[in-house]
């Protein structure tokens, strides 16, 4: 149909047959825009979603009331303000944490980590609040589940080693922002699921499907080019070199 595609692909004379199959697929813009909108809504980017509805001329999905709360909850968790986050979650729907003990425990543990971080920030600080919180909130829950117990023990050992610049990796992980992100995203999914909508955004599913499909196809020895670039690097070359973590992410997809 579109001869522009033909002229573009003609630029690479030795083309892998699989690449031709890829080029033959014409994804619909409507579908892609839908996936983008779904992502903005479900992962909580309300302002972008609003603009996108205007610019792409698509309907903003029925103003889903939870989006603002979800953004606030995410922000609170990201900032380490777990108390606020838990209150907001319970305001929204107390069932969420009641029916998901693992999620509740993950939040409480995050709170404990923040307490420990505060308590150990200087040599003179008092660690009693952290101990109290651990014994009153986490210990009873940990008793019911070996996984919880292991997590709690690991977290408590922070008290011994902090402050330190040289933690063992397992402990260092606990202090990384990554953990907050993970918990925040789990909370977001739980809220969405509790409202009867899809927990995981389609974008995320799609990215996973792409990764899975390539891995599978290579496993069974399908004839594929050595790499399937997405062309994201183009943009990165224009950008700065501090982009290491992004490049890593891209490489995961591309390898």
């Amino acid at each position, binding site marked *: 149909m*579109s001869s*522009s595609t033909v*002229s*573009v692909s003609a630029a690479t004379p030795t083309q892998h047959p*699989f690449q031709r*199959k*890829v*080029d033959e*697929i014409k*994804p619909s813009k409507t*579908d*892609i825009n*839908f*996936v*983008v909108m779904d*992502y*903005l809504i479900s992962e909580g*980017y309300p302002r*972008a979603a609003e*603009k*996108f509805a*205007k*610019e*792409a001329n698509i309907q903003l999905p029925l103003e889903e009331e939870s989006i603002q709360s979800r953004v606030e909850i995410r*922000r609170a968790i*990201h900032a380490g303000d777990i108390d606020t986050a838990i209150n907001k979650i319970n305001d929204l729907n107390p069932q969420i944490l009641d029916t998901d003990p693992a999620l509740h425990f993950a939040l409480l543990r995050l709170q404990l980590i923040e307490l420990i971080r505060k308590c150990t920030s200087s040599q003179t600080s008092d660690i009693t609040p952290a101990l109290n919180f651990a014994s009153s909130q986490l210990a009873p829950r940990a008793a019911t589940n070996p996984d919880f117990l292991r997590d709690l023990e690991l977290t408590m050992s922070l008290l011994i080693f902090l402050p330190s610049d040289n933690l063992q990796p397992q402990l260092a992980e606990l202090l990384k*922002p*990554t953990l907050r*992100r*993970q918990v925040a995203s789990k909370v977001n999914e739980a809220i969405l699921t509790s409202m009867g909508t899809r927990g*995981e955004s389609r*974008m995320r*599913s*799609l*990215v*996973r*499907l*792409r*990764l*899975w*499909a*390539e*891995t*599978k*196809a290579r496993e069974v020895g*399908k004839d*594929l080019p050595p790499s*399937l670039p*997405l*062309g*994201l690097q*183009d*943009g990165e070359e224009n*950008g700065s070199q501090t*982009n290491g973590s*992004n490049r890593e*992410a*891209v490489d*995961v*997809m591309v390898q």
Partner: protein
Amino acid sequence: MFRRQSSYAAVASGNAGSSPSNPVPARSGAFSHLANSGSHPHSITHPRHSRSFDADGHHNSMSTSLGRSVLPSYPGQFGYLNGYGGAQDGATSAFFVPSYLRGSKHAEKLEEVHKARIAAQREYRSTHSSNAGSLSTSSSSANLHKMAPSHRGLSHDIIERAPIVVEEPVAPWPTRWSETEKFPQMEVDDNGRQAKFAGAQKGPDEAASVRADYPMPRQCGIYYYEVTVVSKGKDGRMIGVGFSGPKVPLNRIPGWEPDSYAYHGDDGQCFSNTTSGKTYGPKFGTLDVIGCGINFRTGTAFFTKNGHFLGNAFRDLKPNMPYYPTVGMKKPGETLRANFGQEPFAFDIDKMVQAEKASIQSEITRGTGPCKEKVSTDETQFIHTLVGQYLAHDGYVETARAFAEEVIEEVKAVLNDENAEIPYQETVEDLDAINRQKIRAAILDGDIDKALKHTTAYYPSVLRDNENIYFKLRCRKFIEMIRKCNELNAQCHPIPTPPSKRSTTSTLNNRNSTATDDYDFEMELDEQLGMHNGAPHWNHPEHMDDEDELEDKEAKLAQLTQDTIQYGMELKSEFATDPRREVKRALEDTFALIAYENVRESALAPLLETAGRVPVAEELNSAILVSLGKSSSAALERLVQQTEALVNELAGDGGPGAFINVRRDFLQ
């Protein structure tokens, strides 16, 4: 000037002489010819006839020779059309999707093929209905097809659609027992659903088998069919249900030969490739429903009896052998009836397929990375990059900015006061993106002139280097003009004009049209453009009381019509000599819009839709990006393409991809 108008109209309608009161409903252009010729068949020379006379050479036996020689020539000339149509007739009535395959990619593909055939057939019928029954007109119409270049008829369609089917054949699923792949004394009836052993048994080892018309398609992932034992005959119940390769002898019960597999009713054993079976399930007989399925992903086969799963029977299936549903019987009178999905199944196969899908789904969700947690963090950043790049690439400037802000906000919150480097840049204000957004917006608004102006101003080389896009924009402009004419006309004539009163409408138009001495074709054009009369969004009737406004509008309409014709002529003269096939075809399609009296109901209706602006806008956007040395499609788009292609690869041989419909499961 006026002469050129006339020639334009001739092109547009395909026939300068066709009268406005043309009785042919579908197309007033090329087919008015046919209709006329139908009423006067002798006024046209039929090459076929003359040839047959010449060959025959005997004038005294003319009438008989006509009957003899013309009739056989009919299938000769039209054979492929007729044979095609006829064969499809059977498939048309029989097309079905087994319940467990609904929504699957393979079912979608087959349905597309089916629809394309139906459409080809419908067009065949509608274009030939006016002269049906008259052999001579049929043959003359076939000749006209070839002669009339501005007409896109059935012969084109078939030729153009066929390659899609040929290039990538979509494997059909079994629909009936084969009339040919059967033991001679096996009787197949009830539209191929029932198989009965009618003969007498000759030797102790001899049996009667029949295969289905098509092998079980691997692309289904799981294929399943059922048979009901209608009668196990007088003294036997030696019935085998299973599947076999295309070369397995049909005088043996399935399961006993290499490449054949079956579950036998007399002993409940299952047999694969040999005469020695293994204990498997219960015996079965009259009125039992036996199901047989293959899971191509795992390379296993299973059976069910009266809705109960009996477990996996075989694990040694060959990865490349086509397996046909096969049944075999030994005793006269034994009768089996098959259900290839035309009816609900006794066994809940849907549930099994759902479970298979769910397990693959959870495998995907779990992720395959070595360290899942790490992948998920990188994934978040990866998606941020992906979405940000898509928004910028496609020129959603405002959204891109808002998204970047929100992401940075989020990242800052996570990093807290650690003041670490933020792995995202502030979006660079991209002038190109703004320009591209402007151009896109113009096209999406239907303002092609503005888009052309901006493009020429900002990216002068793009239209020069991409003539096809330039051409598409020009065509689109013509379509937009026709659209406007339609709308205006609808406002001028809010009372639905029945076809019989059409002459009134023309007179009305005529009164207001600018003075022109050959208004004939223009009237026709007005009329055709005004086919929108009955559409629901005409102006409110009270506006009609305002005579001035009406006059004003009609003057505008006349002017617009004039402009449209003028523009059409320019377009035509600019590209008429272009040798490229797609250009020719696009021109034909565009001009055919005028040839149709009722575009909204014609096959070309999609051309008028505003949705048609989107691909033009996207193509231009891509071309501009290429001219700027950037990639023509966003990474997200490529990701979707790659995903579909990869899943297709995993589906072809019945692998896990067969259980995934990317578009349906992930994009909607």
